[in-house]
């Protein structure tokens, strides 16, 4: 990649990181990963111009996958990442430190609407894959059939997508947890489902020999979670791709209806813009996430009606069971099991161990009242229901030119949340809970299984529900008709040549399960199409548009 600034390699020893250990004092193999061709944007003090064959904006599940695939095809790839590169050996168990380092806005982003929904996403090399729970579910078959048969997106059916799911699982090293990593919360969750006769899914997770530290959401210091910063990013870099960190993209550059690059700012250590950069390439891949990708498109004065529309949020409602016996919920692997029995109703039931500081934020009361609840922390099983939402929100630009998410939970989704919370409470009581704390302002706890009916007796009012999410999607969704989605059946922005989307925004609809593997499989499929189009263009001159129109 010819640039005005030669990318520097990050050396392990030179950054005070722990070098790989020997047999006597071994360290996890992920500690020794090399990151060549990385430029720390904070070290650049003058305006810069970069040139490549393909620019990839964002290094999460979609961006890193697309970048590695493009590099494998022989393209000169430049990755641009707004966050920093944090090596595995720098991860700690301190939530305050890690949330400030790895999360956008220190984890305080809100989706505005009824009710407001707390949203967390990664801002670092590897994106949200660094902070997710490592769930690697394929898209449910009924969703893929809907995409192919109802939405007319050819090749997105179960058969067409199977090789891409296989490939994604190979990259991610997907495996279930070993039994020796199960905590008491896992055993209780299993027991509750067994007593109700509900089948339980053993979660496939992207990891190599997880030892159950349960620090997934703060970055995995054991190196077990195979996030993008230990898989596709170092692989792409080792094969010659380049990465610039602390580089925030503001907008896409165009020549007529052809994307020719991006423009943005290099950030200082304090996160403030220091100098400008431009990057030029015939292929621009946006993978900044379902909030910021439409933000970049809107700042680029693209006025496609569907850009930012169709936002889905996968709302999560927390349900906490308090048990007589001690559970020690912080001991044992994160989310070993799910209940998928109610997926067709739009309800997924899971559980997770949450650090006390984070759990405390969601419990009611102040002062002594709050202390009384938190004194039972070691007796709590924190479960949750994830809802496959039907409502659609929007991403809009604020007066500060930043993207904001607007989403109102519709009546049908409110009812699905009630159903999911009721089912989760039923599981917890079946497991032996003495009290269940609910995410409703007008019904904060129930003490017996018979009280579950009170959930349904309340009016279905969205404003009384406390929700959070870590999955947003479909804000630049794929659709055959430009009036239905911002991108076409290959993830290319309708009407623009050389501008494609490779993040959760491209998902045609809400999928009801953790989206990491779906994002990767779609990125693999679409990247193959872009590579074919670029090859075709080379053979036939510039007559073939990359990504634009229908392939």
């Amino acid at each position, binding site marked *: 990649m010819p640039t005005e600034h030669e990318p520097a390699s990050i050396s392990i020893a030179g950054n005070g990181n722990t070098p790989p250990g020997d047999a006597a004092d071994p360290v996890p193999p992920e500690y020794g990963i090399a990151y060549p061709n990385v430029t720390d944007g904070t070290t650049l003090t003058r305006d810069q111009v970069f040139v490549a064959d393909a620019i990839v904006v964002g290094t999460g599940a979609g961006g890193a996958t697309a970048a590695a695939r493009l590099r494998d095809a022989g393209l000169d790839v430049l990755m641009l990442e707004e966050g920093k590169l944090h090596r595995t050996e720098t991860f700690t168990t301190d939530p305050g430190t890690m949330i400030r380092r790895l999360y956008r806005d220190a984890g305080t982003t809100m989706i505005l609407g009824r009710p407001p929904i707390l949203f967390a996403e990664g801002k670092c090399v590897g994106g949200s894959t660094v902070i997710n729970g490592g769930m690697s579910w394929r898209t449910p078959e009924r969703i893929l059939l809907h995409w192919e048969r109802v939405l007319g997106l050819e090749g997105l059916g179960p058969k067409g997508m199977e090789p891409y799911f296989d490939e994604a699982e190979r990259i991610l090293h997907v495996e279930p947890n070993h039994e020796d990593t199960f905590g008491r919360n896992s055993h209780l969750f299993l027991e509750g489902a067994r007593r109700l006769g509900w089948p339980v899914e053993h979660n496939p997770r992207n990891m190599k020999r997880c030892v159950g530290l349960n620090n997934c959401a703060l970055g995995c210091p054991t190196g077990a979670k195979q996030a993008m910063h230990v898989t596709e990013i170092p692989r792409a870099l080792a094969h010659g791709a380049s990465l610039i960190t602390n580089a925030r993209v503001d907008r896409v550059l165009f020549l007529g209806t052809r994307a020719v690059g991006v423009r943005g700012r290099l950030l200082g250590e304090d996160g403030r813009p220091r100098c400008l950069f431009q990057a030029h390439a015939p292929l621009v891949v946006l993978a900044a996430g379902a909030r910021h990708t439409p933000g970049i498109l809107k700042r680029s004065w693209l006025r496609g009606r569907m850009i930012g529309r169709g936002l889905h949020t996968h709302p999560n409602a927390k349900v906490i069971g308090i048990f007589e016996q001690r559970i020690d919920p912080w001991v044992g692997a994160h989310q070993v099991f799910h209940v998928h029995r109610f997926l067709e109703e739009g309800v997924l039931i899971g559980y997770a161990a949450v650090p006390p500081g984070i759990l405390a934020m969601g419990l009611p009361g102040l002062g002594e009242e709050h202390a009384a609840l*938190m004194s039972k922390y070691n007796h709590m099983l924190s479960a949750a229901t994830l809802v496959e939402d039907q409502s659609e929100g929007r991403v809009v630009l604020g007066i500060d030119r930043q993207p904001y998410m607007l989403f109102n939970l519709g009546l049908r989704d409110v009812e699905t949340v009630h159903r999911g919370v009721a089912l989760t409470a039923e599981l917890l009581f079946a497991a032996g809970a003495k009290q269940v704390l609910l995410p409703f302002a007008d019904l904060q706890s129930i003490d017996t299984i018979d009280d579950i009916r009170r959930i349904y007796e309340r009016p279905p009012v969205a404003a009384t529900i406390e929700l959070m999410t870590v999955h947003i999607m479909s804000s630049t969704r794929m659709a055959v008709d430009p009036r239905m989605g911002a991108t076409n059946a290959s993830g290319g922005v309708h009407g623009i040549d050389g501008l494609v989307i490779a993040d959760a925004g491209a998902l045609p609809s809400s999928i009801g399960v953790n989206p990491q593997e779906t994002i990767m499989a779609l990125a693999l499929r679409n990247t193959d199409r872009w590579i074919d189009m670029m090859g075709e263009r080379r053979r036939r001159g510039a007559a073939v548009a990359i990504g634009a129109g229908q392939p």
Partner: protein
Amino acid sequence: MASESTDGSLVTVSRGLLARARLRTLRAVVAAIRPRGHGFDQPIDDDVVAEVAESIRHLPMGLRVWFETGLALVEYGTPLYARRMRRFSSLTPAEGLALLSRWEHGRGLRNALVRGLRFLIFFSFYQHHRVLEALQIDWPGRAATLIRLRAELMHREAESDPASHAH
């Protein structure tokens, strides 16, 4: 500015990040709503205030301004909302708690403000090492053990099958 915390460890009290008056209000809010009783009587208010001030520094600009404005509302809103001709920081913790409890159960911006404050204060409080000790939680110790365990497992696996272990 670095100051000595209550337990003797050095913490960074970012006084410059919040105006002195807002810091006084924040300290009064912490005293009012902090968990107490049930094993949570650790004298760590200064550490919590410092941690909250540091967290506010990492919020987006809009939220930072909102917090500053909200703290001013708390400080000077007492005549209107508590019928007391005193600033919030002059109230006793019990009086402060009573006022903020009403706001917590109300609606609109005051409810959102209390939710935001409890969000930051409870997070800082319950992640304090003395509180974690009281809860008998040793996440860092467990991390050290498990990092080593996995390293040994992977090392053994690499020795038995070097081909599958190549990065």
